[in-house]
Structure formats: C-alpha cells, structure tokens
C-alpha cells in the first residue's frame, strides 16, 4: 500500500502523501486520564508520545514531508531519523484502517 511496507526509507510518493483519519476514526484528548487516544468502533488505541505528536498533525492538509519538518524542528532531531519513524507509523496505521490518504 505504501513504500513503508516494502522499503526502509521513505519514498518521494509517501512524503508527498497527505494523511488523514478514516471517517470512523478520531484522535481525541482524554482529559480524565491526561493522554491522547484514537477512538473507533469498539476499539481504542493509546498512542505513545511521539505517535501522538505525529497523529495530531494528520489533519488532511499537512503532507508527510511537512510533518517530518515540523517534528524535526520541534525535537531538534535529524531529518532522516524522524522521517523513518513517521513513514513507518503512518504505514502501519493505514494498514489497520486508522489513517487514509
């Protein structure tokens, strides 16, 4: 489905993708437990801190490349490393039906 599943590095096509949540999935802040959660029918994922940072930016207008740029700036980290994480996570969540693009 995406380059993330077939190669380790992000391909240009993936970086140009604009991920958004599938219509029945939603990222939500769980005030009672002070954490982000992904809500869907009969399921609930609790993303870790980095995953939550990525998912908060999956708004249907921001490209994968722009998400990588933003995170690299925020975390003062190497572009390549961040890009690998972002592409892997987005690929996995697409396969699980959480994200579409």
């Amino acid at each position, binding site marked *: 489905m995406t380059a993330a599943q077939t190669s380790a590095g992000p391909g240009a096509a993936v970086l140009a993708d604009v991920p958004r949540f*599938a219509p029945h999935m939603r990222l939500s802040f769980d005030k009672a437990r002070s954490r982000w959660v992904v809500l869907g029918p009969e399921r609930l994922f609790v993303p870790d801190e980095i995953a939550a940072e990525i998912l908060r930016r999956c708004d249907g207008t921001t490209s994968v490349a722009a998400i990588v740029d933003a995170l690299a700036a925020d975390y003062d980290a190497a572009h390549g490393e961040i890009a690998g994480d972002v592409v892997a996570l987005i690929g996995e969540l697409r396969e699980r039906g959480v994200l579409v693009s």
Partner: protein
Amino acid sequence: MIAPSSSPPPPLALLAEVTHRCPMRCVYCSNPLELVAASGELEEADWLRVLSEAAELGILQVHFSGGEPLARQDLPRLIAHAAREGLYTNLITSGIGLDAALGCRLADAGLEHVQLSVQDTEATGVDRIGGFQGALAHKRRAADAIAAAGLAMTLNAVIHRGNAERIDAFVSLALALGARRLEVAHVQYYGWGLINRAWLMPTIDQLRAVSARVEAARAQHKGALVIDYVIPDYYARLPKSCMGGWGRRFMVVDPAGRALPCHAATTIPDLHFTNVRDASIAETWEHAPAFNAFRGTAWMAEPCRSCDRRELDWGGCRCQALALTGDAAATDPACHKSPHHRAMVELATREASAPPAAAAGDVTYRGSRRRRPRPPAAATSRKAEETCSGF
C-alpha cells in the same frame, strides 16, 4: 463481596440501551425476557443528563443500542448531544426504518459509526430469525442510506447452526454493502438466545469450518475489510473477558434507567441496581452495590482465586456462570478449570446434534411470551406465541 478500597478507574464506554422496542423479534436477541415497555422508558432530558455525566466521568465512547434505537424519535438529538460532549458515537441498528433522510440527520448530528446487523445472507433466513417479513431488503436500503450519508459502517453477522455455512456470503455481502469492518459473532446465549439455544447451537464441525473461512477471508481481503471474530463460549477452552471485567470498562443503562454492569445483569438475583433518575453516573460507578459485587478479584473462589489468568479474564461471565451452574460467583463454565466445563461442552454437542426439525417447534420469538401483563385490549393485537418450522 468486598468493595475495593480505592475508587475504581472510570469506565471507557457507555452502552445506552435507549429502548427495547424493535420491529424485529430475533430468536437470539440478548434483551432480557422482561422487556421494558415504551411507557417505562427514560425521558429525553434524563438521557441528555446521563450523556453529560458519562463524559464528565471520563467515558469516551457511547454505543446507542436497544432494541432498535431508531424507534426513539429523539435519537438524533441524543447523538448530537453526545457528540457535543466529545463522546465517540456508535449506533447499533437493525436498519429497519433507516432511510436516506434519516441517514443524513444522523450524520448531521455527528454520528461517527453504524453497526448494521444481518441475521443471514438469504432473505428467508433473515425473516425466520427475525420474525419479520422482508427484513433483508430493508437492511440493503439502510446500508445504501448509511453510505450516502458518508457514515462508516460495520456489518454484524450473527452466526448460528442455520447460517454457519454462509460465511463467504457474509463476506461478499459486507463488501457489496460498503462495510469496512465485518463482525462475525456466534450467538451468545443470553436472554432470548438462551431459551432458544437448542435451535441455534452450531456443531463443533461447523464451528471449525467457520473459523477456517474467517481466517481465509481475513487473508484474502486484508486492507479492504477488517474481520473481527467471536466464537461461542460453549466450545471454548477459556472464557472471554466478559465486558472487559465487571465494573471495569462498561456501564450499561437500560431503557428504564437502571445502571447495569452488563446487559444480562438483571438475571442475577439479589443484585440491587440504582437508577440514573436517582443517582449520578459517577456515584453509581463508584458506590452502587451491583458494580462492586464482582469488581476486581476479591469475590473469587477457587479455581479463579489462585489462577494466574484472574486479571486477564476476570473469571469470565457472571451471567453465564449463573445460567449454567446456578451460582453467579462460580468460575465461568467456559473455562476448562471449571468443574462444570465438561457438562457445558456435552450440552452443546447434544443440542447441536439434534435434528433441526425436532427443536424447531420450541423456538420462541423475542417478546412472544413472558411479556409483562398487558391490558386486555392491547393483548389481542399479537398472538401469544409463534412457532417456526422448516428450519
């Protein structure tokens, strides 16, 4: 029955059983045998308050179920309120009465997901289970309305002896109707399903075949269709973690406003249920005796008490333990460590091997007996009991 000392973590989901009214009369309906009459249902204002209190307590998802939730005219307003409170909203429906206009109203209200139930892939099978003529055509129209409104849909396929051969057809139907998810769930034997068990129980060979078809379909449609699968407890080796543990994840509010730890909890004698008309959701969750009765592990006897799975499955289902052993605090007989396990498997094997016609005369449609006494005028409107033949 010792109450936990610290306050329990808040529940994740509310099952809002807004009505027991339903145009269908499924022989496996999990509603209680004593159905709540329309006149006994909570008012809209009560539901609005319940939804707000649920969100306040930390509940994240609300499942509107029933009965047929669409039987309530105020359902779009309840959904809109839940959405405003930030709750994830899911509608569990038979699809009867869901036309394009209503689909749009539900989507506009903020509904996020619909679970549409199908009793069979063949029209006659659907009618036979649901006691309603032409139901499959209604469901197809409902699926179209759901798709046209842009709502995401899961198809709920309920599996029993009479339709276990049609797993591939259910998968094709799910794809044709535009579902992203298919739930293949064997009948669970509560409520009307328990009294009709002999008519519904699959054979062990059917169960194996269904499991194999589900595996094959999962592989074949990976990425296009997510398939969730629930096996019947009677042939299991370990119990399921019923409701994710008693008083841990779910609160059910029934049409009359009773707050229940699971939808079959009213079958357990001596449990006292508070009503949302009298007590808040938070108070009920923390202090209601019914929620504390089987919360945690302190109530357990052996073999659960010393078992290393006790915090994984929480001893299984209390209502099933009661139904099959007479003791709600016993280990769920679905567990191989229960002294009643063998008897449970033997019962299933015996019932499943009976020729279908022999049991058919005993089938009881939901709502067709053990009704609350009704005034004589109303009682003449429907036959007391109907039987089903040719199954």
